[in-house]
């Protein structure tokens, strides 16, 4: 894991001018701080009352303070203290954290119990409060500072390392080593600790900025090295009094701390992203889509489409391609010259293997085609109207009203924090101007139609079984009596007996409402149960279409024949056909 992280880290750093700049600044600061005596012969503590509060000049690059001491050289020497304390604290914190965490995680039992309790208690203090208390009670100074920082920082590490250890000690090679009689200390150092190096370094990177901040906060409060020795936080505190006439006294140490911490956090961020991965694309950014002028979709939206004889869905020579240049699949054609027609009240099954483009087609019928995909050629008509150029707002009126969707995974298709009743109600409230009582009546009616008890109105999605959730999704889809229902693998996530009941329900609803149904599935048996006509897709193209019984008994395309032959329990289809 650490190799991969390291590679990603160096990779992202190379493409990152800000990161390189910060790294350079940090290296320069560190080098200057180390080489302080070589850079200037001025003393950081020698006072000179003839030179008090001089502004920055050729000799005193950053001016002098109210004791006439050179601020620049104090900054360098102060950095030694600040950074050294932070560095020592990191080493101590890591050592204690790793030792305690590994021991607790590996041995478990009473040791683990006691350690976990101690960690719990120490983490129950606000970090800085405990650090201040420890440093204050120990009287301030460099050693108390290190101790204070270490005392408050180690428990968080120990807890994480303990978790990692628990994980690693379950691994096969650790049990193998144990069975082979490898001594415990060798397992701990050789197998477990070695595997923890990656996570530990990541933790250190993420936290070092906080440690530097804590060190300087304590020294700002007067709990660091005693004066006159310089230290960044203390310098800032001393400079406060003369800030009005000598702002450099505050700016110099403040900026020094800020830049170093900023760099540490920046690298921490890069490391975090290399480990966790940072999603950079908002998945569905409908908010970004411009609200363009509305097309005349009102005819379709108001549902008086029954008047026109046009097909529910009529696609001619459709091509959908990856049009986003940033996508690794740029230029790939997802749908190639696809034509499909769903008549009114007709049930069409769309069959294809994974990646054949059938879900892309279903999304298109709802206006949900999104970058990186785009429609590049062909005609898409919805109830006789050209839908290819509809804006998001046009589609918003149509979706859930005239065309609706039943999705594949009922487990995640419902909003987990809204009650089922509210999720069905809002479909009516958004699209129809209905009085409250009518909404409630229709809600009860639709639940009855999908065979759900009334109590689900008050329930949350996770309280329902998978089959019940899919019924709730179907209720949402049909509550406004749409003319076209897109069912995209609606039964795939369900067990077999539930599948059949859901299919019968869909078929039943289709008859009742005269719904046009586009049923997408990879499962021929399922399609055979609901579809009048089937369309077979492969690699983005339609290979065959025709009445269900005909395609299943006398397929012309070899791929279809292969599919039909491979279908388990073919008897089902014959029974159905009979």
């Amino acid at each position: 894991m650490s190799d991969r992280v390291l590679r990603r880290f160096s990779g992202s750093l190379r493409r990152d001018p800000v990161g390189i700049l910060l790294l350079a600044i940090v290296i320069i600061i560190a080098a200057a701080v180390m080489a302080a005596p070589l850079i200037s012969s001025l003393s950081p503590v020698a006072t000179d009352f003839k030179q008090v509060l001089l502004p920055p000049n050729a000799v005193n690059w950053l001016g002098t303070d109210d004791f006439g001491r050179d601020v620049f050289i104090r900054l360098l020497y102060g950095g030694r203290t600040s950074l050294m304390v932070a560095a020592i604290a990191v080493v101590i914190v890591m050592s204690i954290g790793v030792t305690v965490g590994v021991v607790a995680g590996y041995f478990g039992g009473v040791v683990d119990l006691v350690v976990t309790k101690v960690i719990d208690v120490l983490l129950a203090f606000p970090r800085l409060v405990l650090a201040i208390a420890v440093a204050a009670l120990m009287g301030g100074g460099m050693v108390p500072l290190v101790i204070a920082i270490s005392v408050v920082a180690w428990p968080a590490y120990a807890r994480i390392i303990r978790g990692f250890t628990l994980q690693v000690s379950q691994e096969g090679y650790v049990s193998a080593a144990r069975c082979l009689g490898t001594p415990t200390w060798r397992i701990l150092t050789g197998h477990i600790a070695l595997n923890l190096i990656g996570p530990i370094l990541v933790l250190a990177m993420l936290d070092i900025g906080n440690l530097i901040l804590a060190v300087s906060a304590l020294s700002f409060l007067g709990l660091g090295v005693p004066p006159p020795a310089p230290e960044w936080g203390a310098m800032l505190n001393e400079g406060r009094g003369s800030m009005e006439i000598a702002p450099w006294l505050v700016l110099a140490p403040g900026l020094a701390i800020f830049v170093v911490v900023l760099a540490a956090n920046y690298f921490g961020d890069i490391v975090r992203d290399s480990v966790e991965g940072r999603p950079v694309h908002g998945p569905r950014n409908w908010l970004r889509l411009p609200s363009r002028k509305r097309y005349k979709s009102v005819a379709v939206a108001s549902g008086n489409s029954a008047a026109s004889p046009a097909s529910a869905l009529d696609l001619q020579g459709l091509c959908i391609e990856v049009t986003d240049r940033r996508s690794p699949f740029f230029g790939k054609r997802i749908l190639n010259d696809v034509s499909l027609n769903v008549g009114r009240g007709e049930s069409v099954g769309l069959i294809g293997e994974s990646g054949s483009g059938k879900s892309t087609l279903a999304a298109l019928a709802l206006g949900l085609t999104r970058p990186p995909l785009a429609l590049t050629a062909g005609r898409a008509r919805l109830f006789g109207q050209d839908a290819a150029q509809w804006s998001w707002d046009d589609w918003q009126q149509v979706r859930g009203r005239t065309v609706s969707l039943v999705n594949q995974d009922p487990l995640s298709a419902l909003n987990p924090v809204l009650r089922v009743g509210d999720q069905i109600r809002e479909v009516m409230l958004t699209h129809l101007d209905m009085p409250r009582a009518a909404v409630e009546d229709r809600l009860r009616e639709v639940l009855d139609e999908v065979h759900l008890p009334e109590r689900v109105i008050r329930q949350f999605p996770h309280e329902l079984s998978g089959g019940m959730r899919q019924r709730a999704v179907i209720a949402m889809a049909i509550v406004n009596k749409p003319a076209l229902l897109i069912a995209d693998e609606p039964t795939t996530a369900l067990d077999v007996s539930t599948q059949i009941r859901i299919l019968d329900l869909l078929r039943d609803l289709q008859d009742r409402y005269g719904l046009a149904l586009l049923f997408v599935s990879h499962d021929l048996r399922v399609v055979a149960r609901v579809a009048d006509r089937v369309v077979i897709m492969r690699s983005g193209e339609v290979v065959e279409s025709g009445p269900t019984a005909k395609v299943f008994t006398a397929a012309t395309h070899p791929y279809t024949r292969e599919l039909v032959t491979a279908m388990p329990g073919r008897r089902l289809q014959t029974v159905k056909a009979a």
Partner: protein
Amino acid sequence: MLAYALRRAFAGLSVLLGITVVVFLILRFIPGDPATAVLLTMVEPGLDSAQITQRDIADVRDQMGLNDPLPQQYATWLGRVLTGNLGTSLRSRQPIADELATRIPATLKLGGAALLVMFLIAIPSGILGGLYAGRSTDHVSRVLSLVGESMPSFFLGVLLIYLFAIKLGWLPAMGGRRPESIILPAITLGVGIAAATSRLLRASLLDTLSQPYMLMAEAKGMKRSTLLFRYALRPALIPVLTSASLVAGGLLGGAAVVETVFAWPGVGRYMIEAISGRDYPVIQGFTLLMAMLFVIINFVVDILYRFLDPRVRVEERGNV
């Protein structure tokens, strides 16, 4: 729910007990003899340890109960703490509990104001970062987060004083007497804790935006505002509550620093003043108070979390 709350309260009590042990022990393990320290603080300045006789020390040790075995000392101390007696300040000779009580409202007020500042920064920046992930808006929000968390609060506070109090003269620099005095310290304290929340909200929002129910809601023809607030934001805000512990820790810890910078009359500054006077019982009392507040806040947040997320709510009902 109630059973869960009780169980959590019980766990919280055991942690509180552990806290009292730690707070008790750190005073016992400080270098040097507490009795000598007390003597040095209580008698006139100018006296040094050489002038304190062994008998004085023995007397004070006896008075303080330092000759008893440690567990007995702890029990005595805990008994007093439980009755609200945190001891007497060495400098003012006043009960510490009273002194803390008069100053805690100022600290809570500052904490509340800082929380408000944090929300005003973190919520918009988190939402914009999530919705415009990978775009320039996202980068700006990310840079702001980085700057916010890298800025030492005492440096930011001093800069704000320099700009708004000294140069522009818009706001008072110090103290808490005027109502607008709270603005600068609240900003200073709020900025530091906003970064973590903003980051968490961004990640959480990206997660809900990619959930299938988002697509489903769009397919239901929901309007933009419904999609944003009911479907994306509402579930996304729940995990953000988990950062409350971080936020509370930052507020309570940062209070001491920020109150010092702005001479804000709260418990933080009281404690920092006690440090220079070597008023150990005050430091002890302050630490105990802050840790207790922290535990209580975490407990409330935990219960609130269970209450707001229906998934967890029912799980618990099922278990009990």
